[in-house]
């Protein structure tokens, strides 16, 4: 077998689920559209390198390529979405890039409902954000480099989403991580920014230990890295997998916790605000934080099937519930408008994760979908405001509705959608999640006693409704402090240029209407979309609204807005007066983020970087090397002793052969004090002799 043959990669599987034995007859292979979908991850990855190396020479210095790429993704995603709704697609392609033992390692692309939904979201939201970034980043010191990293960021996410196996998912996963590190630390002249970037990277890396271990366990117990093989093994109830499924599921979930900012690994996300605002918009909406949700959803049958990782779901719902409730409260005390949004993202991610824990695959993904639109909208709106007033702090804002009409209108739509006011997108998706909690607490659900049972689900439902109130409350605060009352900043605020507010309008349309894709009992486009997979996900679909949940959820949201209005609408002279949210004990707790960041820094990072590392280094020099150096000195001392003996006792003999030693000594001295050349010459001469011996011996 020649080199070329050894390197060439046949395309071992281009399997469409429809042709698979036991597949689902209604699924199609998507034709050429799906077969060419490898372009989706590849184009942005190549583009990122092109921009980094040659972007400066393009008319718009890299922005043009980057935005064209995202436009391509948006269009491709839309086509796939339409094709999928016409006939569900489940397609998987791969090329083998290595074989280890009998393990194939592959790059590939998967086109099914779940990935199509993500392609669409990343493409469409990404396109708007990239468009907007032209205006926002104008004049930036590293304009071209920014778009190179930004394209890598989106590209990494698409590598992740298109992955048909765990290896590629890990590759995309870490590419997203490294791109986020570049982007968060974009203004690395400032130490705080590079520290925030490192915090994001390391927190995710800690979680990745879980992902790595989970992936290893899954791959070894199934004998394949492919999701399709793993999920088929679940379907068939392979005992080798069932044996370790709980631990694998838990480990994978820990990985998901990092990327998706779940409590207590959420600490990196608020600090990630150090990056430029378009980065926050993409990171919080379509890319990165959705990765964890996506991963759990991708492996969902593993978590749903009894006897596998189903018991992990109680962990997931608890973590999700803690996240949605605890992080939302912190948003109430933030002055930085981006931080308010950051904590709200954490809280919404908590909803999604808790929904997955409750077994509501569709509801979780639906919230991911709608949230992508209104969170991107809110961040871009915040960016537009920051752009105008040159401050992140709401205490420097106020009254901006008069100066920035488009930003104001779209921001309010986003805020209402996030608060869950009907009929905006967030209402439908949040309602579905709350309904799924209620369903999980009911007798007919599969969320049995093993997972904590009805009691747990009902507690989560209460927390979810309470957090809905909190969400509306802090969003009302943000809107009133920013856009109402008197302007408190310096300079003259102005509406942002069209290249910035047009994307706002585009995203506002999505935020307003995306919810209609899945109205219980009326439309089920979205259910069909994400349900179209080779291995079906058998979650519960409500046939109609759960009236109790609708009423409670809406009432909580309206109440939140009402209280927000009462407290923050009246314009007060100082921020402290306006911001009178002082509950004894609670306020410092929230302001210090429950002291978790301090705990990590003072309790883990500092000791390891400080005394522990120094201790190891000391041990290296003073203990191990003590033995080494000690042996050396001991040997030298012994040598001296022997020499002394030699000089005194054997003196006569030495003297007798004085002439002889003198001659040799002279020669040795010459050699030793001679120039380097001589040493080198001697080495070569010695080696040549040796080799000559070999050769001669060989010839003879």
């Amino acid at each position, binding site marked *: 077998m020649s*080199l070329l043959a050894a390197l060439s990669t046949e395309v071992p599987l281009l399997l469409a689920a429809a042709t698979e034995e036991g597949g689902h007859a209604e699924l199609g292979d998507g034709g050429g559209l799906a077969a060419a979908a490898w372009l989706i991850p590849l184009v942005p990855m190549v583009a990122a390198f092109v921009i980094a190396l040659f972007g400066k020479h393009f008319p718009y210095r890299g922005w043009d390529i980057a935005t064209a790429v995202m436009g391509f993704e948006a269009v491709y995603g839309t086509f796939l979405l339409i094709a999928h709704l016409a006939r569900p697609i489940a397609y998987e392609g791969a090329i083998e*890039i290595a074989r280890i033992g009998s393990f194939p390692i592959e790059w590939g692309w998967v086109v099914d409902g779940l990935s199509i939904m993500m392609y669409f979201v990343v493409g469409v939201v990404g396109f708007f954000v990239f468009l907007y970034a032209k205006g926002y980043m104008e004049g930036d010191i590293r304009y071209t480099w920014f778009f190179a990293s930004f394209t890598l960021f989106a590209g990494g996410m698409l590598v992740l989403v298109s992955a048909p196996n765990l290896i590629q998912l890990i*590759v995309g996963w*870490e590419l997203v991580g490294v791109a986020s590190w570049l982007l968060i*630390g974009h203004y690395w002249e400032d130490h705080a920014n590079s520290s925030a970037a490192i915090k994001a990277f390391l927190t995710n890396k800690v979680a990745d230990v879980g992902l790595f271990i989970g992936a290893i366990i899954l791959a070894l117990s199934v004998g394949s890295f492919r999701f399709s093989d793993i999920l088929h093994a679940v379907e068939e109830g392979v005992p080798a997998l069932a044996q370790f499924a709980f631990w694998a599921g838990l480990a994978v979930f820990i990985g998901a916790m990092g990327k998706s900012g779940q409590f207590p690994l959420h600490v990196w996300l608020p600090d990630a605000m150090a990056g430029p605002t378009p980065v926050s918009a993409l990171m919080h909406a379509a890319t990165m934080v959705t990765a964890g949700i996506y991963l759990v959803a991708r492996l969902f049958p593993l978590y749903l099937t009894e006897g596998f990782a189903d018991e992990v779901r109680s962990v997931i719902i608890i973590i999700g519930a803690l996240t949605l409730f605890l992080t939302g409260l912190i948003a109430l005390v933030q002055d930085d408008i981006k931080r308010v949004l950051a904590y709200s993202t954490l809280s919404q991610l908590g909803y999604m994760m808790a929904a997955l824990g409750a077994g509501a695959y569709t509801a979780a993904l639906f919230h991911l979908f709608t949230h992508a639109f209104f969170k991107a909208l809110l961040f871009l709106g915040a960016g537009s405001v920051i752009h105008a007033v040159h401050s992140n702090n709401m205490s420097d804002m106020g009254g901006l509705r008069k100066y920035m009409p488009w930003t104001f209108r779209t921001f309010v739509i986003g805020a209402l959608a996030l608060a869950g006011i009907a009929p905006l997108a967030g209402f439908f998706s949040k309602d579905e999640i709350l309904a799924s909690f209620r369903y999980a607490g009911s007798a007919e659900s599969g969320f049995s006693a093993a997972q904590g049972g009805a009691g747990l689900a009902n507690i989560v439902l209460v927390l979810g409704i309470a957090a809905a109130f909190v969400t509306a409350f802090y969003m009302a605060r943000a809107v009133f402090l920013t856009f109402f009352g008197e302007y408190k900043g310096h300079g003259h605020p102005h509406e942002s240029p069209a290249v910035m507010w047009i994307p706002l309008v585009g995203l506002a349309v999505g935020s307003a209407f995306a919810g209609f894709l899945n109205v219980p009992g009326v439309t089920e486009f979205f259910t069909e979309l994400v349900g179209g997979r080779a291995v079906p996900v058998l979650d519960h679909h409500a046939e109609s609204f759960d009236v109790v949940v609708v009423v409670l959820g809406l009432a909580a949201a309206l109440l939140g807005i009402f209280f927000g209005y009462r407290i923050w609408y009246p314009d007060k002279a100082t921020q402290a007066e306006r911001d009178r949210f002082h509950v004894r004990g609670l306020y410092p707790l929230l302001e210090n983020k429950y002291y978790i960041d301090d705990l990590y820094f003072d309790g883990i990072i500092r000791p390891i970087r400080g005394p522990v590392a120094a201790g*190891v280094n000391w041990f290296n020099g003073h203990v*191990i090397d003590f033995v080494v150096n000690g042996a050396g*000195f001991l040997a030298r001392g012994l040598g001296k002793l022997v020499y002394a003996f030699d000089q005194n006792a054997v003196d006569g003999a030495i003297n007798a052969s004085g002439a002889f030693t003198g001659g040799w000594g002279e020669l040795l001295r010459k050699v030793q004090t001679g120039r380097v050349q001589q040493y*080198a010459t001697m080495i070569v001469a010695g080696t040549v002799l040796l080799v000559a011996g070999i050769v001669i011996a060989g010839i003879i």
Partner: protein
Amino acid sequence: MFDNGLALSLVVILPLIGAGVVMAVPKANESAQKMTALVFTAAAFVLSVVLAIQFDYGDASAFQFGTDLDWIGAINSRYHIGLDGISLPLLVLSTFVTLLSVIYSWEHWPEPHNPKAFIILMLVLATGMNGTFVALDLILFFVFFEVVLLPMYFMIGIWGDRAETEIPVFKRVTEMRLYAAIKFFLFTLFGSAFMLLGFLGLYFRSGDAGGIRTFDMLALSELGRAGVFAGSFGMWVFAALFLGFAVKVPMFPFHTWLPDAHTAAPTVGSVLLAAILLKLGTYAFVRISLPILPEAAQRWAPTIGILAVIGIIYASLACLAQTDMKRLIAFSSVGHMGFVMLGIATLTDIGINAAIIGMVAHGVITGLLFFLAGSMSHRYHTREMARLGGNQQLMPIMGAILGFTAMASLGLPGLAGFWGEFMALLASFNPLEGLSTGLFRTLMVLGAVGTVLAAGYLLWMLQRVNFGEPKAEWEGHHFHDVDGYEMAAWAPMILAIIAIGVFPRLVFGSTNDAVVALVNAAFGG
């Protein structure tokens, strides 16, 4: 030419011939010396690539291009060489990095200058390294293994760092280069002595089985499989070989020569040391210890695994304490080689494949890191990270390459370093049957934690070196960013890091069949 061992011998011998030619060139004529070195190392590299092209990958477990000639008849030591799927990538790595070192050296001569001597040493070193990877006779192996020592000793001792250092506890002050060179030399020699004893033990025992005594690795492997070296004899021989190889790797706790040697060595010395010399030890485990002493290997594997993982964690923690950039990179080598040894300790096909790709990746990545550290300290005249902040502003291209290489070093998926680490962890979940899964799974988790620490020290290194504002002391200085020779030496390494990361078959395509055959022969059915 390929069938009679001539081509393979040439790859080994060409650098040495080059050294001979350089010797004949007058000292003043530096460009002729450099050109000679370039021609001979390039020829060796091209020839090794030709071998890689001619190699029959369908039969990767067989030794190809080799020969087996009488050499030292009295002890039945033979000139037996050959190339299989395991040694092929390492041989190419060796010729590749040597060539790039020559290119880099073109305009970067460490003090006290004297390129002629430096080139000669470099070329002799290359012969030793290449020879080690193709030798199939223990004595021949030993000779090549030791040939490497002296040139490196002189490189460190003469061109090394002249700063003074105090030896802890003993309070002696000495020049860095002298201390490091002697430590390197004696430490390695200490290991080698045991290694030679082990070889002799095998030799004498090999006669007991009824045949004639032999140093031939393949013949010894046959005997090993037949159980001739079983029992406590094998355990002792394995221990002796272990000492020799573990010092070279280096494994905790035999690693302390490495940070000193690397810190003191001139740039090219560090590069060759990290990229190739360390691999001689790990390669020897795969080539000699496992096939010849399979039973002892299984009993020693848990110890090796534990030491490997201690090395990973220990080195990462030590890295966090470093203030000297080069010393940090040196310590990181100990951690990375820990992953290689962990892969070997699992005694599985996945683990050993992981080890070999780990060796290749570490060779390219850490080699490049040492190039960068060298070029930066050449410009700043310091390696103290506290003084280097803001490098990204002063030298944007250098900073970008450093950032890229650090990412590769922390095992970023998609780049070369990932495969070795991840696959070593993968292998640890299911080690060879008979080894404790509980132990190795614990090692897997600890190793995975090590990757977090590795990310930590590399990111903090980047923060201290690249980011922030430049220190006031550099105000008014103009720094020359990456020059043409540096780019010519580094660009191939960058491409290799990406290529192996994206398409690991470049290495696995060669190693896999050979590794599977090795594991099956030694430990399977």
